């Protein structure tokens, strides 16, 4: 799609508020796959969306039509219904709210349209035939992060956990995985665990508080890179040599890669937006042809270290 067509599509979608049919770049014969995104403006989701578009353009006979829920579940639900009424070959949903997925699953099943959830794991523990999830396992992110920190700590010392948001599924799973890894090693212990809302300033304040409380912390396992960078800033401002306290994050954001290059961040974990995008499109195409796909398609997280960070700069 040219950028003119793209922006024209976007304006029409925004004007009509619900994704109106008839604004796809596809020729009428091609089967269309409807993609209901939670946000168009989110940084990571934009990479995911672009990856899906790029991958689909390389597959003959596959065209995608996107809609933007702007974070609104109700809007996403009506966009999805529009796709189904329009007679799309399959629907890919990046859920605006994962607790609302049972309703979407029902719509797709009743209309017999294949459904692929991408990135955000649906609320259901099992998915019916014709419905699959493509994404990454947050437990793995926490495990990779903490195993690497543990290795760098020689499997001994005190760990502090910076939790993202209490209600966030990703934060809960990453935290649980970190706790499970620490529990494996008898000479390691979790001494602190507090919330910093995935934010850099909150991470900075929390680390300041920990440092003044005098807790002996050898490593900080943060649920995301932003909080990890906050912790690094607090450590540096307190005048403690950063190599004394290891800090780990998740996401491999450009800022985090810069910290890895400086050696202040010990580890991050890369969530593969392109892998998830390709996986989702492939699953949708297979399902629309009547082929079977595993209910849960896991795209692995990848460990990012001071040694290999360069290979993630352009991913």
């Amino acid at each position: 799609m040219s950028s003119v067509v793209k922006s024209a599509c976007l304006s029409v979608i925004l004007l009509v508020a619900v994704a109106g049919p008839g604004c796809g770049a596809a020729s009428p014969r091609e089967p269309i796959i409807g993609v209901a995104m939670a946000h168009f403006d989110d940084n990571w989701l934009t990479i995911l969306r672009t990856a899906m578009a790029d991958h689909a353009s390389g597959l003959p006979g596959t065209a995608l039509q996107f809609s933007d829920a702007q974070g609104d579940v109700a809007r996403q639900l009506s966009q999805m219904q529009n796709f189904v009424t329009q007679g799309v070959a399959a629907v890919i949903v990046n859920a605006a709210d994962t607790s609302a997925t049972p309703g979407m699953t029902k719509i797709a099943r009743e209309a017999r349209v294949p459904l692929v959830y991408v990135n955000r794991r649906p609320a259901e523990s099992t998915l019916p035939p014709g419905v699959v999830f493509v994404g990454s396992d947050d437990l793995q992110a926490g495990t990779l992060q903490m195993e690497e920190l543990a290795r760098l700590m020689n499997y001994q010392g005190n760990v502090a956990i910076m939790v993202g948001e209490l209600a966030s599924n990703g934060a809960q799973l990453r935290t649980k995985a970190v706790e499970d890894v620490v529990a494996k090693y008898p000479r390691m212990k979790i001494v602190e665990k507090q919330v910093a809302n995935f934010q850099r300033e909150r991470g900075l304040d929390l680390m300041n508080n920990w440092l003044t409380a005098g807790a002996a912390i050898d490593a900080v396992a943060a649920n995301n890179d932003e909080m990890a960078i906050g912790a690094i800033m607090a450590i540096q401002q307190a005048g403690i040599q950063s190599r004394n306290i290891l800090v780990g994050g998740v996401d491999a954001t450009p800022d985090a890669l810069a910290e890895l290059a400086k050696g202040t961040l010990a580890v991050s974990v890369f969530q593969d937006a392109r892998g998830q995008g390709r996986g989702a499109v492939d699953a949708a195409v297979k399902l629309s042809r009547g082929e079977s796909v595993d209910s849960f398609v896991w795209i692995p997280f990848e460990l990012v270290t001071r040694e290999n960070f360069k290979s993630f700069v352009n991913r």
Partner: protein
Amino acid sequence: MGIFLVLAGIVVLFELVGWSVRGASFLFNAQRLLVMVLQVSIIGLLAIGVTQVILTGGIDLSSGSVVALSAMIAASLAQTASARAVFPSLVDLPAAIPIAAGLATGAAAGLVNGNLVAFTRIPPFIATLGTMVTARGLARYYTRGQPVSMLTESYTRIGEGALPVVIFVAAAVVFHVLLRYTRYGKYTYAIGANAQAARISGIRVDRHLVLVYTVAGLLSGLGGVMTSARAASGQAGMGMTYELDAIAAAVIGGTSLTGGIGRITGTVIGTVILGVMTSGFTFIGFDAYIQDIVKGAVIVLAVVIDRYRHRDAHT
């Protein structure tokens, strides 16, 4: 000052629990005293602004979003030339330029608030709610949600060490003097006590309201500059719900939401109470799931105790 007793009570409580949990003093630690105020100094700046708005009988819900917008605009001008993404052609600018841009952004938002309140006759709650949503939207739109990082050292230096505390205290002193000893203060209290009477006695109420909202906006802009300097990054999610913490600080400090009653000294103590709670909870390792429940109860309780003592003193 009933609220001072509340603060003392909270500190003593943390001191006692702290000794049994950590075996160390909560209060007698210079570093911790600094951190307690440091982490709320930006909320304190907003609280000083919103106190004045509340004194006129109004409210400002936009301060947190204005922090984000000012932070984004200031940060985009403070990027180092090598990393510059928003304005690629520019060289490293002296810190004064991004600071001025951030302050101007805040003042402009305040100017809009003031004019809406003074001349459209819509309630301040709605006027500033609109600005809250729009400013957050602008902050996201500015870089399409991308963070603005890699800021010059001359800029980030203003957010380091105790400087945010110094600026917070300086702002408190300035506005304490302005409110108590100048015509600016007399008009502010007069309008809040009885706008009609103020108008009849010759005060140009509309013009003064615009001034007060602009001052509050300017302080939010300063908050945005300090936040982005402190985090060495401008992000659209910054300052989320800060407006509510700022209003809480003002009200805990004895500012009456009906207008005409309140002091900057009270607001400073209200702000410090919020900081003491954050540090205290972390110090005693309080379960993160329970912290907000207790924090909300303490806010209400503090106001109840203050009002109760207030009534005692006057009957």
